[in-house]
């Protein structure tokens, strides 16, 4: 009977002891009541010793903690953007907000009622196909040659077999040519150009000096810009916007609804989204990928070349 108990205690002692790194022991000391259960938990968390110190008592709301999260695994996403012209941006944000709710949304809703979804998706495909030059050039400039080949193949196949781009046969399982949703702003990002600061353009929405380059480049490379006369071109653009809006009514509303300060929420969402895109593009690039993985060494190595 006694020996049984002592064996059990020995086991308990060993199990606790083996996970007893210094960090986890400090965590145990701060626990208010050391019941067998908490010791057990501390032993558990000791196995992931690094975490134990930072968040040993996250279930309580009573203690101050070091909540910097600077060493966080996902800290690379901690992105901020300078916003020196915030009053202007906020005004533009409200302008765009009203434009959406008073004009764009009602029109898109009416259009949605009249035109069935498959047709609207086809229209979206058609315009997406027309945007091929920007994406192809961007892929080339990013040294993402497989992406460029993908885009080239997609454009050829969808234009010929997809009835001028209305259908998207390249995306089906047999061909599986992935869309390369990239642009010149991302290309500059891949080169290491930063955003600069935040700008909200009327109608066009969130942007930055870097991404504004894309708006300009896109103008010259997008075939719709060359529709003659100019007002017909604008009409086509407006139709494109209404069509794409009709496919995602509700997205902006839910973002706004969930936000405490919608302007800041939009700004942050924009920055996070662009950053991830640029990172994804970098990972595909033949040249800039290497730079990414060995960033500190690259600086010193380059002058020797």
């Amino acid at each position, binding site marked *: 009977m006694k020996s049984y108990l002592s064996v059990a205690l020995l086991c308990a002692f060993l199990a606790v002891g083996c996970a007893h790194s210094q960090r986890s022991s400090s965590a145990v000391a701060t626990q208010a009541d050391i019941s067998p259960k908490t010791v057990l938990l501390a032993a558990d968390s000791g196995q*992931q010793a690094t975490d134990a110190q930072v968040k040993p008592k*996250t279930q309580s709301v009573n203690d101050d903690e070091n909540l910097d999260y600077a060493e966080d695994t996902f800290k690379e996403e901690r992105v901020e953007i300078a916003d020196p012209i915030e009053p202007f941006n906020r005004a533009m944000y409200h302008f765009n907000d009203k434009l959406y709710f008073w004009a764009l949304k009602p029109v898109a809703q009416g259009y949605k009622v009249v035109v069935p979804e498959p047709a609207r998706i086809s229209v979206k495909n058609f315009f997406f196909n027309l945007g091929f030059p920007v994406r192809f050039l961007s892929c080339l400039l990013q040294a993402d040659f497989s992406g460029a080949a993908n885009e080239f193949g997609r454009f050829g196949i969808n234009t010929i077999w997809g009835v001028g781009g209305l259908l998207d046969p390249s995306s089906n399982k047999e061909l599986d040519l992935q869309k390369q949703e990239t642009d010149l702003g991302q290309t500059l990002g891949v080169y290491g150009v930063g955003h600069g600061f935040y700008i909200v353009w009327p109608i066009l929405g969130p942007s930055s000096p870097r991404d504004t380059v894309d708006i300009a480049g896109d103008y010259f490379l997008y075939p719709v810009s060359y529709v003659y006369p100019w007002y017909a071109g604008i009409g086509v653009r407006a139709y494109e916007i209404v069509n794409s809006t009709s496919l995602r009514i509700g997205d902006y509303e839910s973002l706004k609804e969930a936000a405490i300060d919608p302007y800041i929420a939009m700004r*942050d969402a924009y920055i996070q989204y662009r950053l991830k895109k640029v990172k994804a593009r970098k990972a595909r690039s033949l040249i800039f990928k290497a730079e990414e993985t060995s960033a500190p060494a690259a600086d010193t190595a380059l002058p020797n070349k």
Partner: protein
Amino acid sequence: MKKQFAALTILMLFVFSIPVYAGVPMTTVEATVNRVLNVLRDPKLKSPAAKEIKKEKLRVIYKDMFDEIEFSKRTLTRNWNKFSPAQRVEFVNLFEQVLEKSYMDKILDYSNEKIDFYKETMIPEGKAEIESKIITSSKEIPIFYRMILKNGKWKVYDVVVENVSLVQNYRTQFNDILANKTPEQLLEILRKKVKEH
């Protein structure tokens, strides 16, 4: 006999605490999302009158799935320390209601879109990222769940929708508000937000 029983219990605790550890985060999220889908698809709850029952069921699942305190702490970061314990409790509750109000209807709108879980990345220090996507007729929406292992249970502490991390997004907003407002004023903003409509 009693002592023997106690010893056995202690032993059992050790034996069983280890397999819990190996619980795969991906299966956890997938199982939880399937529970949500079961509620949404339940033919008995199809009538509009059953909406409240559905909501109540989803709330239970939500509590099980999310680590609300971790979520709140991560959005407030250092500002968390400026809140008194009572304010913290209120903040966690209000924040949860804000989220529920904004996302509940979206979730209830679900109409049999396919959800695909395809990747799990384990990160040291007891964290994991699960990648999933919702496939609709016109697009694919990537949704990543960030999870943390706590007391042997994997809990979600951040959701990344279309590359935008919710925690990060709220963190920026709260930082901006708390830069020139007190915690009490932030709570007041949240209270108003919850009362709206």
